C-alpha cells in the first residue's frame, strides 16, 4: 500500500469507524445477536441459529421485492452517511492538505477515492458476499447482478462527489441533502424545539434509518400475521429493537445538551416543566411509529395491543433518556443497559404483559428523572 492510500485510510476511514463504533456495535448486536425468521422462507437447518436467521433474512430479501427496496434504502442512507463524513472532512481546515491530491492524475485520484468509499462501505460489501453465496445457491443470479450493480453504482457516485469537491473546493452542490425546513421548527425558542432541531439537522440520516427500520419492519411483520393465528410477539420484538435503536440518538443528544445546552440547568424552570419538554420532544420523535401503529390498528392489530405497543415505545424512549441522568455512562456500557432493557421487553412480550411494562417504564422514567436531574454532573472523576 502506498503512502497516499495509507494517509487517506488514516485520515478518513479510521476516524469514521472510530466515531461510529457505538452504532456499529449496536447494529451488529441487532443483526447477529437476535434470532428469528423472515416470512417463513427457506430455513437454514444447520446448528447455529444466527446463521439460520441471516439465511432467512437474505432469502426473504431475494423473494420479497419490498424488503429488497427497504434494504437498498438503508444502504443508500449508509452511503450518504459516509459521504457526509468525507465531504465535511474535506472542507475542514485541518484536512486542507488533502487538496494536494489534485496534483495526481484525474484517473488515479478517482481510483483512490473509489477505494476510500469502498473501505467506508465495507460492512455492506462484506454482507454482499453472504448475499452472493445464498443467491447463487438459490439460483437468483439476475437479482444478484442487480444488487452488485447497485453497490458498485452507489460507490462510484459517492466517489464522484468526493472528486468534485476536491476539484472545486468550497462548493458543495452535490451534498444532495436539502435542509429540512419545517416552518415551526426552523425557528422557535422552546426547549423541545432546540432538541428536535438538533436531531433533524445533525442526525437526520440516523433518524431516517431508525424510522425506516422500526416502521417498515413493524408494518410488514404485523401485516403478515394470519388472522386465524393472531400472534404479535415477533413483530413487537422487532419493533422494540427499532425503538431501542433510538438509544444511540438519545446518547448523542444528551452529550450535546451537556456541552452546548448546559445553561438550561441554570434557567428558572421547574422539574415538571423540564419533564414536559422531554415528554413533548419524544412524543414528536415517535410520530412516524405512531402513524404506523395507527394504520395497523383495528385490523390486523387489536386496539388494546396498539395502545400497549405505543405506550411501551414512549416509555422506552423516556427511560433511555432518564438513565443518562444517573451518571456519565460510556456508550459501550449504555448499549449494554439498552440490551438489558431489550431482554426485559422480550420476557414481558412472551408473558403478554406489555401494557404493564409500559406503565413500569413510564413510572421508572419519571422517577429517575426527578431523582437525578439536578444531581447529575458530567465531570465526575
Amino acid at each position: 500500500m502506498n503512502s497516499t492510500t495509507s494517509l487517506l485510510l488514516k485520515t478518513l476511514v479510521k476516524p469514521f469507524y472510530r466515531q461510529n463504533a457505538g452504532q456499529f456495535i449496536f447494529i451488529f448486536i441487532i443483526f447477529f445477536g437476535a434470532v428469528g425468521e423472515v416470512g417463513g422462507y427457506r430455513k437454514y437447518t444447520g446448528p447455529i441459529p444466527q446463521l439460520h436467521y441471516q439465511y432467512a433474512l437474505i432469502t426473504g430479501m431475494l423473494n420479497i421485492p419490498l424488503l429488497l427496496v427497504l434494504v437498498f434504502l438503508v444502504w443508500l442512507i449508509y452511503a450518504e452517511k459516509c459521504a457526509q463524513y468525507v465531504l465535511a472532512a474535506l472542507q475542514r481546515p485541518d484536512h486542507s492538505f488533502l487538496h494536494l491530491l489534485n496534483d495526481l492524475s484525474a484517473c488515479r485520484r478517482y481510483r483512490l477515492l473509489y477505494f476510500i468509499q469502498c473501505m467506508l462501505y465495507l460492512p455492506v460489501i462484506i454482507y454482499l458476499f453472504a448475499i452472493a453465496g445464498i443467491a447463487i445457491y438459490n439460483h437468483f443470479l439476475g437479482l444478484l447482478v442487480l444488487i452488485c450493480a447497485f453497490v458498485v453504482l452507489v460507490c462510484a457516485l459517492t466517489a464522484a462527489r468526493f472528486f468534485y469537491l476536491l476539484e472545486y473546493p468550497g462548493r458543495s452542490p452535490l451534498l444532495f441533502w436539502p435542509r429540512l425546513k419545517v416552518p415551526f421548527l426552523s425557528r422557535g425558542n422552546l426547549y423541545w424545539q432546540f432538541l428536535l432541531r438538533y436531531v433533524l439537522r445533525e442526525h437526520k440520516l440516523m433518524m431516517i434509518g431508525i424510522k425506516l427500520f422500526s416502521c417498515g419492519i413493524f408494518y410488514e411483520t404485523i401485516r403478515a400475521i394470519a388472522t386465524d393465528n393472531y400472534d404479535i410477539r415477533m413483530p413487537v420484538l422487532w419493533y422494540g429493537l427499532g425503538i431501542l435503536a433510538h438509544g444511540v440518538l438519545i446518547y448523542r443528544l444528551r452529550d450535546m445538551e451537556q456541552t452546548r445546552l448546559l445553561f438550561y440547568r441554570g434557567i428558572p424552570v421547574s422539574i415538571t416543566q423540564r419533564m414536559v419538554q422531554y415528554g413533548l420532544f419524544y412524543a414528536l420523535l415517535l410520530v412516524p411509529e405512531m402513524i404506523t401503529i395507527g394504520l395497523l390498528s383495528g385490523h390486523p392489530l387489536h386496539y388494546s395491543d396498539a395502545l400497549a405497543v405505543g405506550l411501551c415505545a414512549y416509555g422506552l424512549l423516556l427511560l433511555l433518556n432518564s438513565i443518562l441522568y444517573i451518571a456519565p455512562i460510556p456508550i459501550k456500557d449504555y448499549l449494554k443497559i439498552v440490551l438489558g432493557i431489550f431482554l426485559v421487553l422480550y420476557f414481558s412480550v412472551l408473558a403478554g404483559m406489555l401494557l404493564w411494562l409500559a406503565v413500569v417504564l413510564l413510572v421508572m422514567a419519571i422517577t429517575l428523572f426527578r431523582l437525578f436531574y439536578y444531581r447529575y454532573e458530567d465531570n465526575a472523576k
Partner: protein
Amino acid sequence: MLKFIEVQKSYGRRQVLSIPSLQLNKGIYWLQGPNGSGKSTLLRMVAGLLPFKGEIDLDGLSLRRNPVAYRRSVSWSDAEPLYPAYLTGQDLISFYRDIRKASQAQVDELMTVFGVRSYCAAPIGTWSSGMIKKLSLLLAFIGRPSLITLDEPLVTLDNDAIPAFYTLVRAVRQQYDTSFLISSHHDLETNSLPIEKKLAVSGQTIV
C-alpha cells in the same frame, strides 16, 4: 445576601472546595485564584449548574429547597461558552426573554450595548468566539436577577466591548442593586467598577 453554609464540592474523591461558612453582602466581588483552584466550579455551583454538599442561599432563598425561585434570582455566563451551532443568537435571546419574563425594550438595549444586532439572526456556528462571548454576557443580563455570576467576562472581548461592559455592570449595579460575582485573570479596572471586595479561592476555600 449570598450565604454558603458548610458547602463542599468533590470530584470523585478529590475535594475541590470546602467553605464552612461565608456571607457576601450586596456588591461586586472579584474572584481570583490560580488555574484549577475551583473558581469556575464555585460559579457553576452558585448558578445551580453543579451538585454539591451543603447549602447556598440567596436573599433567603435556598437553592435546594426553592430551586426555581433561586434560579430566577441568579444568572451565569461561562468562560468559554458553547451553544448549538444550528441555533441563532435570536433563538437563545427569545428563549431567555420568555423564561426570565424580560421586556423587549431591555433586550433591545442589551443588543445595542453588546453590538450583536447585525449578526444575531445568523446560526451561532458561523460566529467567532468573541461574538459568542458577547452573546453569553448578554444572556446573563436578561431579566432582573439579583446576582450575576460571570466567569472570565473579558476573555475574547474586543477593545470597544470592554468599556461598554464596565458601564453596563455599573449601571445595573446602581439601578437595580444587582450583585456580581466575577472571576477574572485580567485586571478589572477598579476605577470603572466599584469592587466591594476581592475574594481569593485558595486551599479549597475562599479567603
